[in-house]
């Protein structure tokens, strides 16, 4: 962002729950309204809306963003729907940033929303139709080759990545356990988290049996329901408000030429994460040590550890010890996932990057209440798609005026 200053001026998220009783459309609309109220702006000053619809749960999300625009009753200059797996909502955020940077919009709202369906098959749907829909969905993601092997959720891929990480980098199951435990401790400070007030100890992890070896159930995130929205504005709007803007300092994005499993190379190394981190840090002109707080898209405990290493917070194989020794929590070197992270905040995939953005915004504004990272000035947020084949990283800074 060399020529245009871009600010985050407001954010909102829903509590993370397993299911919701209300229509998802209402959840999406309300989260947008909450973010606009948080920004303290006239709702009609919003002229951009970019969203990631709950496409993992629903198949008919065509024109979801137009319907939201109509429902909100706001005239817009730009609308977009972004989809690329786990990065989807980060790309909705990127769209809002680009429209403001290009001058097309003054104020753009980005939304991510996802929902775990309570009834599968859906009411009135036959088991045949449901299986057909599910299998088509997974084969589309895993390709006509890997798709024949009966994978539903991608947990086996991540389990094998964890196995290789342990094999190559010397990480242990205890290292994995500490990632899960620290995130749970953070969730216990966050009333919005799915796993708020549910203790998780090293004894619990040691006694747990393997779910998909070497991963235990508590090494995995749960796909749940939630929404997050942020408001992006140009310098003129951001500076006119009586609130502290959070400025974009750097953005990095990269995609390795593989879709789910880096089969040409090494499944426990993620060059796209490293490349996107390098871009973001170079653009922001700050170091890894400068970052006070980070939200990373670690959907499994081992992934959380590997991500911290690819981003450059810790050397290869050393994250587990850092988590255990408290370097990634309050009083340590950097607070990683104060929200509770994917494992303990809960993981509504199409909303997750926006939940991360919400957390970073609140932390940098000093509004994170009992989980506030003291004097948080620089924050990093990360999203990935596939099995970390692609990555988007941004760095944000509290206005120091």
């Amino acid at each position, binding site marked *: 962002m060399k020529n245009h200053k871009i600010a985050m001026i407001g954010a909102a998220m829903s509590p993370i729950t397993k299911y919701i009783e209300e229509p998802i459309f209402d959840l999406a609309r309300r989260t947008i309204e909450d973010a606009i109220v948080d920004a303290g702006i006239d709702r009609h000053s919003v002229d951009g809306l970019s969203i990631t619809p709950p496409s993992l749960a629903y198949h008919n999300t065509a024109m979801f963003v137009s319907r939201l625009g109509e429902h909100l009753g706001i005239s817009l200059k730009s609308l977009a729907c972004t989809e690329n797996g786990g990065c989807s909502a980060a790309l909705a955020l990127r769209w809002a940033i680009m429209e403001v940077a290009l001058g097309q919009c003054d104020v753009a709202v980005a939304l991510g929303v996802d929902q775990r369906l309570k009834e599968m098959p859906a009411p009135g749907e036959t*088991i045949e139709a449901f299986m057909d829909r599910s*299998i088509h969905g997974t084969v589309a993601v895993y390709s*006509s080759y890997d*798709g024949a092997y009966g994978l539903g959720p991608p947990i086996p891929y991540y389990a094998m990545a964890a196995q*290789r990480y342990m094999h190559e980098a010397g990480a242990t199951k205890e290292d994995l356990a500490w990632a899960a435990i620290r995130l749970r401790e953070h969730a216990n400070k966050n009333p919005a988290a799915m796993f708020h007030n549910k203790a998780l100890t090293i004894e619990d992890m040691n006694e747990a049996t393997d*779910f*998909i070896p070497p991963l235990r159930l508590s090494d995995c995130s749960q796909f749940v329901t939630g929404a997050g929205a942020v408001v992006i504005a140009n310098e003129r709007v951001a500076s006119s408000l009586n609130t502290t803007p959070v400025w974009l300092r750097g953005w990095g994005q990269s995609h390795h030429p593989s879709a789910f499993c880096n*089969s040409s190379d090494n499944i426990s190394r993620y060059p796209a994460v490293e490349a996107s981190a390098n871009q973001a840090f170079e653009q922001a002109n700050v170091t890894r040590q400068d970052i006070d707080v980070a939200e990373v898209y670690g959907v499994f405990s081992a992934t959380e550890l590997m991500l911290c290493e690819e981003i450059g917070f810790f050397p290869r194989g050393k994250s587990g010890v850092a988590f255990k020794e408290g370097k990634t929590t309050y009083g340590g070197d950097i607070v990683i996932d104060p929200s509770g992270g994917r494992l303990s905040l809960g993981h509504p995939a199409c909303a997750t990057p926006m939940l991360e953005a919400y957390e970073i915004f609140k932390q940098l504004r000093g509004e994170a209440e009992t989980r506030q990272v003291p004097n948080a000035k620089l924050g990093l947020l990360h999203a990935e798609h596939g099995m970390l084949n692609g990555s988007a990283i941004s760095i944000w800074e509290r206005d120091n005026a």
Partner: protein
Amino acid sequence: MKAIIDSSTVRAIKFNSDGATKHYYNALKEGRFQSTQCQQCNHIPFPPRMFCPQCGSTDIQWIDLPKQGTLYAFTQQSRALRFNAPDVIGLVSLPDIGMILTKIDAPIEQLSIGQTVEWNTFKVDDRLTVHQFHPIT
């Protein structure tokens, strides 16, 4: 349920095909495990491609893949949809080609990283045959 899953899988594979998919599965049905090789730069991608992702050439030929590889990683799904539970799956490294996701025809207790494994075919139903690997001792 198996018939429903098999039918859906066959249709999903067809729907999500690229230019090489049909030949690839037909070869497996005939007991041959194949990919493509670029006739310009000799690169062998997996999955197969009707062009070379390394040099861009469309001058490719189908080749038989090596019979043996090395077990690179493995796990199992206890709630398997496609095959009998527990469903052992793995990534096998084939020399000069890379890792291939496959079914492993052995209990997980008998597996270790680096084992030599060999492929044969597994007939899912009349329309679909896949590759699977087992350790050789």
